[in-house]
């Protein structure tokens, strides 16, 4: 079942900016769509309006062809997973999962079988009689999933479901979600501020910022072709180099680039270049290297298979570079060395528009 949101606006205070402002998005049927954004971007509010837990001030919510904008949450048939799990503390795991079945008056035997199947699905067989307080965070969240899935929802809404979990557990559950989705294809809407999680799990991303949609598209689109400086900086992380147009070229501090084919910008216009940490190549500097291009390696952090270098450019600006461990070793670069940085790719924004 596909989801269409049209021109959604929701405010919590009479004055000031609305929490959600004229947001429109589409979640394709059977895919995982992620609402990605920092705290306060309105992503959770959008999710809660879709679930019916909040009422919009204006706009429409459509499930497939059905307008559900004014349908009470009770009747929307969605599965909602909360960041805080929201398990019923005084009910066993089994009773938690069976809750929605009880509401629908499913006969006891059938409900029991369903609960067993779900327990296996979330790999919690044998823990049916435990209480939430006796489970770990990851286990609790899996119960929350099972409970939401029990009602065979038209859509799964996940509100920062892994936010409260340990890093390791987060990664495991992320994998589990992706595998589950590959098998069952329930339209899923995921809200998160973790851009790594968004990129790993999503079919479709909607980036939100200050209550509005900044960009929507596939993961690659949003990453490779960010529409706004915010998206460029938020999704994937980037170095920001500031400068201006000089002689038709983009001049940002120590770097000088030509414009992309067909693009133009006025002389002297202020520009920001967004450079991904791994779009920079380094070579060791020698006596012949032009001073302007030389940077000093201030710090190196060896993280697993890659290295994160903190550089200080010739004009004093900092730059973060990420390179595979093998390359660094081949180049023989160490802390304190002087290196030359070459930008493989940069996303340049002139004031409010991008080149």
């Amino acid at each position, binding site marked *: 079942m596909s989801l269409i949101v049209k021109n959604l606006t929701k405010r919590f205070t009479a004055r000031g900016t609305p929490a959600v402002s004229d947001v429109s998005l589409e979640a394709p049927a059977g895919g995982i769509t992620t609402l990605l954004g920092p705290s306060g971007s309105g992503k959770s509010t959008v999710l809660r309006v879709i679930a019916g837990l909040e009422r919009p001030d204006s706009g429409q919510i459509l499930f497939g062809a059905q307008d559900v904008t004014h349908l009470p949450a009770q009747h929307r048939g969605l599965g909602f997973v909360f960041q*805080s799990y929201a398990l*019923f503390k005084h009910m066993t795991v089994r009773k938690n999962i069976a809750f929605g079945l009880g509401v629908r008056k499913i006969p006891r035997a059938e409900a029991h079988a369903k609960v067993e199947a779900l327990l296996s699905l979330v790999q919690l067989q044998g823990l049916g009689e435990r209480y939430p307080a006796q489970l770990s965070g990851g286990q609790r969240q899996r119960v929350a999933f099972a409970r939401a899935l029990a009602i065979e929802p038209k859509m799964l809404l996940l509100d920062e479901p892994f936010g409260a979990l340990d890093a390791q557990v987060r990664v495991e559950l992320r994998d589990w979600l992706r595998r589950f989705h590959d098998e069952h294809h329930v339209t899923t809407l995921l809200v998160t501020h973790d851009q790594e999680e968004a990129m790993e799990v999503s079919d479709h991303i909607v980036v939100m910022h200050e209550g509005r949609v900044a960009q929507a598209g596939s993961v690659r689109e949003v990453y490779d072709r960010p529409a706004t400086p915010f998206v460029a900086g938020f999704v994937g992380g980037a170095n920001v180099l500031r400068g201006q147009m000089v002689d038709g070229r983009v001049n940002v501090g120590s770097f000088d680039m030509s414009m992309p084919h067909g693009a133009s910008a006025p002389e002297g216009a202020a520009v920001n270049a967004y450079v991904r940490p791994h779009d920079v190549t380094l070579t060791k500097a020698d006596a012949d290297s032009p001073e302007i291009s030389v940077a000093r390696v201030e710090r190196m952090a060896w993280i697993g298979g890659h290295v994160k270098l903190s550089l200080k450019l010739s004009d004093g600006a900092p730059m973060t570079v990420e390179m595979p461990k093998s390359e660094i070793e081949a180049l023989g670069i160490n802390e304190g060395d002087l290196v030359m940085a070459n930008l493989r790719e940069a996303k340049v924004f002139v004031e409010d528009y991008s080149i």
Partner: protein
Amino acid sequence: MKAARATAGALSLRVVAVAFLGVMVALPLAAVVGSVLTGPGGVGAALHALASRTARAALWLTVWTAVVVALVNAVMGTLTAWVLARYKFFGKAILNAVIDLPFAIPTLVTGLMLVVLYGPQQVIGQVLAAHGLRLLFAPAGIILSLLFVTFPFVVRAVEPVLMDIDVDQEEAATTLGSSPFRTFVQVVLPALRPAVLTATLLTFTRALGEFGSVVVVAGNIPRRTLTAPVYVFGAIESGEPAAASAMSLLLVAVSAGLILAVDRYTRARARAIGVRV
């Protein structure tokens, strides 16, 4: 606290606390117990006094009115706490303050207020009398004054639990298709059960010992509207220490026993959810 210094300081604090409570609480309790054990006639006389028809009737009246009041409060107190915690309306602050009134108003004044409001000379009193309802000098009056005096207990015990309940759980139930009523019964109520239980027991205990309001409202007619505490008072005034001791000890034993049970239960629950008590 730093090790060596703390132990001496902590010890002296403990001594002060225990001594204070020992003198103020343990001593009077011991006196009541002692008066039965060492009084003239000892335990035998005490039992004999309690066996009198007046005493038995007083006990029975006290117990059944306390039970009724506890049950009514369990329901009305929970509902009131729900309204306080979940509803927004004009005058809520006033309602909130009014609920605490019985904590502050002297019980004697409570009794007097009820007499003034429902007495046979008043309009309401006459209307009620016409329908065969006597509030004053009747068990109904006792129940009414007890309801007044014990009203805040359940409300104030349930209120913080209600506010602590993760609204998440109720929202989760709604997304799973539950109606508001079902959500209240299956998700909210079980979470409230311990608080309601302990508060109801405490209401019962408090009602058991109520004196000031009852002595004015009930008329204290032996075997009709004479409650146990008033019986004790009467026994003291008329110089029957054995009867007074016996009834006192019984009341103290029951109340103290209930308090201890509630304390135990509260601590066990707190341990279960990991709170240090």
